C-alpha cells in the first residue's frame, strides 16, 4: 500500500529495515538482530527523519463521537533518501550498539559515536565490528576476542578475518593484545 507522503515511500515490516543481504550475512555470522529494538532505535534518531516515517490510520467513529479508537500503525521507508544518507551505515550502527542486549536508552546514548565509526568502515569491516560486539556481549572495546573465535564465527570465510583485522589495526580502529582483538574506544 502507498504512503500518503508519495511514491518514494515503501511500506516495510519491522525486519525490512536491514537489507536482506546484510541480514542474511549477519545471521550466518551468529549475530541476533532484535528488529523491534532496531527499528525503535533508528526511528528515535534525527538522522532518520526524512527516511523513516510512521503513518497512523484511524478507523472511523460515528459522527459526533470521540472515542477510544484503535489506530493502525504503518512504517514506511524512503529508499532514495535512505541511499543518500548511507542507510547501511545507519542500520549497522544500530545493530552494533544493540548487540549484547543493550536497552533502547543505552543504545541511543551510544548511537552517534557508533554511526561515526560505521561511516568510516567498509561493509565487510562493519560486519566484523558487529561480530566482535556480538562475541563480546556488547563490549567490543572492553573485551578482547581471540582471532580463532572470530574466525570460527566466519566458518568457511575465516580467511577474510585476519586481513580485515589488520586493516582496522592500521587505521587505529582495532588493537591486538595478549587475549586477542578488541576495538578502540
Amino acid at each position, binding site marked *: 500500500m502507498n504512503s500518503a507522503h508519495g511514491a518514494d515511500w515503501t511500506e516495510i515490516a519491522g525486519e525490512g529495515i536491514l537489507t536482506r543481504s546484510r541480514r542474511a550475512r549477519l545471521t550466518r555470522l551468529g549475530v541476533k538482530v532484535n528488529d523491534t529494538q532496531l527499528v525503535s532505535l533508528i526511528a528515535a534518531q534525527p538522522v532518520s527523519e526524512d527516511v523513516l516515517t*510512521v503513518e497512523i490510520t484511524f478507523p472511523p467513529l460515528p459522527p459526533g463521537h470521540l472515542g477510544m479508537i484503535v489506530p493502525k500503525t504503518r512504517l514506511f521507508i524512503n529508499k532514495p533518501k535512505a541511499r543518500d544518507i548511507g542507510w547501511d551505515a545507519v542500520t549497522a550502527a544500530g545493530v552494533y550498539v544493540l548487540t549484547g542486549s543493550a536497552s533502547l*536508552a543505552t543504545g541511543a546514548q551510544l548511537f552517534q559515536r557508533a554511526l561515526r565509526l560505521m561511516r568510516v568502515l567498509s561493509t565487510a569491516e562493519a560486519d566484523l565490528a558487529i561480530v566482535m560486539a556480538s562475541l563480546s556481549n556488547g563490549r567490543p572495546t572492553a573485551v578482547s576476542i581471540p582471532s580463532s573465535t572470530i574466525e570460527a564465527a566466519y566458518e568457511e570465510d575465516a580467511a577474510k578475518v585476519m586481513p580485515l583485522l589488520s586493516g582496522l589495526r592500521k587505521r587505529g580502529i582495532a588493537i591486538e593484545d595478549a587475549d586477542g582483538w578488541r576495538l578502540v574506544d
Partner: protein
Amino acid sequence: MDGVSLTEARTFRCATDPVEHGVLGYHDGVDTWTLDLAGGLGGSLQSFVSLHERSHQALHETTAWGTAMTVLGLAAAPGGSATTNRLWEWMGRGCTQTHEQFATLAAVEGSANGLNHLTGNYTYLQYYRSACALLEPLTHELTRVTAADLIYRLTMSPAWLLEFDLNSLLGCEPALHPGATPDQTLGDLRRALSDQTALTGLLSAVREQRTYGERWDAAAQVLRTQGIQLHYWAEYEAWLPKFIDEYNRLPGRAMVLVDSTAGDPSQIRAEAMQRERLTLHAGRLTLKWGTAQTSGQSLTPASFARTHEEMGPHVVLAWLHPEVLRKQSVGVPEKWAAPRLGLLACDRRVEPSLLLWVDFDDAPPSIVAASIRKTPLAPLLMTTLYTLQASDGSIDFRGWAPVFITVDTPMIEFLQSALDREDSLSYWVIGTAGSRYLDHVVVQFNEDSALNFVYTCSVMTSRAVDDWLVGKEGVTRRSADEFTHRAALAAFIEHLIGCFWLIELGRWPAIPAPTRASRRAGHMRA
C-alpha cells in the same frame, strides 16, 4: 463534536504501539489527564505515562493556546454552541504534533531510561525524534529541557490569538482560518532554526536576557524577522487575566490564575498532580439496590459478605453521597439527594457487573453497626471526603475504628487547611500491587487513629504529595510497618478497586466555586 462529553474527551492519547494494546493515558485537552490502570499499568511505565500526561497539562496551562482551549473546553461542556465546539476541535487538531512532541520529550528526559518505554512504539518514537531534530541546533548550548521549554511554549503562543477577547473567540469560526496553528508554526520554526542568523539570535536571547519574559521577548523578536508572529510577554500578561475574568463571568466552573513563579514549588507540583484521574475499570457498574426492609432474597446479607485473608469475614458499611454513587454506577434513584448509609459490594461475575447496595437511608451508623456486630461479620466502615464535606455534619463516627475516608476532593487544599488550623498530622505512603498498581497516602489527624483519610493515586502523585508534606511542622511521616490497620486497609482497598471505576478529586456538582482571584500572569487552573 456536538453532544460529546468533554470530560471524557481524549484529545491527546498516549498509547502503546502497536496500538492493539490500548491507550495508557490521555489528556482531555481541557484541564486534566487520566491514567488507565485497568490493564495493570504500573512501575516505571506508569510514572512515564503520568509524566507524559502531566507535561500536556503543563504546556496547556502556561500558554495562550492552551488557556484558550481550556476556556473553550469548559465553556463548551455541556450544551456549548456548535461554533465553540468546532473551534475547540480545530484548536486541538492544530496543536497535536506540538503537544505530543513536547510531552514525549519531557517524559523521556524526565525519567531514567525513559526511552526504553517507547520500544516498539514507533508513533511516539517519531514524536521524540521530531522534537530532538527540531531542538538539535539549540542543544549545542542549551539542554534539551531548556530548549524545549522555550521553543514549544513559543509555538503555542500565536500573536493573532491575543487579538481575541472571550466573546469574539466564542463566536470564531475555524473555517475562516483565524490564524496559524501551533503545528503550522512548528514547521516555520524548524525552517527558522536552520537559519544561522536566527539561531544565533535565539541563543543570544537565552544567554543574555535575565528574566523569562525578557528571554521570551528577545526570542519572539528574532522569530518575527523570520515571519513568525508570536506574542510578546507583556501582551500575554495583560491578556490572560482579562480573558479569565471574562470567562469567570459565565456560569460554570471558575478559573483561578496563580503565579507559578511564587510560592512553594513542591506545593505547586502536588497541586498539579492531584488533577490526575485514574480509571480502574472500563466504566461504571450498574447499581442494584434495595432497602433494608424490602431487599428480600435478591440482596441478602450473604451477598455482601466478603472475606479477606488477614481481616476475615466482613461487610462494608458505606456512608456515601448519592453523587459518589452516581459517579461510580448507573441507576441511582434521582430522588436521592443527601448522603446515605448502606451495605456496599460489587459483583463482577455477572453481565452487566453490579454495584450492590442495601439502603439504610439516613439511619444512624451506630444502630446498623450494632446489628452487624451480632453476626459473624465484622463491619468495615467507609465514606468519602466529598460526602463528609457535603453532609450536614450530623453523622457521628465515634466508637468506630477504623473508618476509611476516600479522599475525593482536592487533597492539598484539605491538608493545608488542617495545617493552617495547626492540627498535627501523621501520614503513611503505602503501595499495593496485584491487578492495579496504586499508592495510598493515608493521613490521620491529631493522633486519632480511628479516622483514616486515604488518597489513592499514582506513584508520581504520591511522591509529589510526599515531597510537599515531608518536613513540615506538625507533620510526621511514618513507616508503612507502623500502620496499625493494615489488614483493614488492604480489605478496604480491595473493595475500592472492585466498586469504583474512577478515582478523581473534585468535579462534584455541589462543590462551591473557589475564590476567584486574579494575580500576576503565571499559569491558570480550572
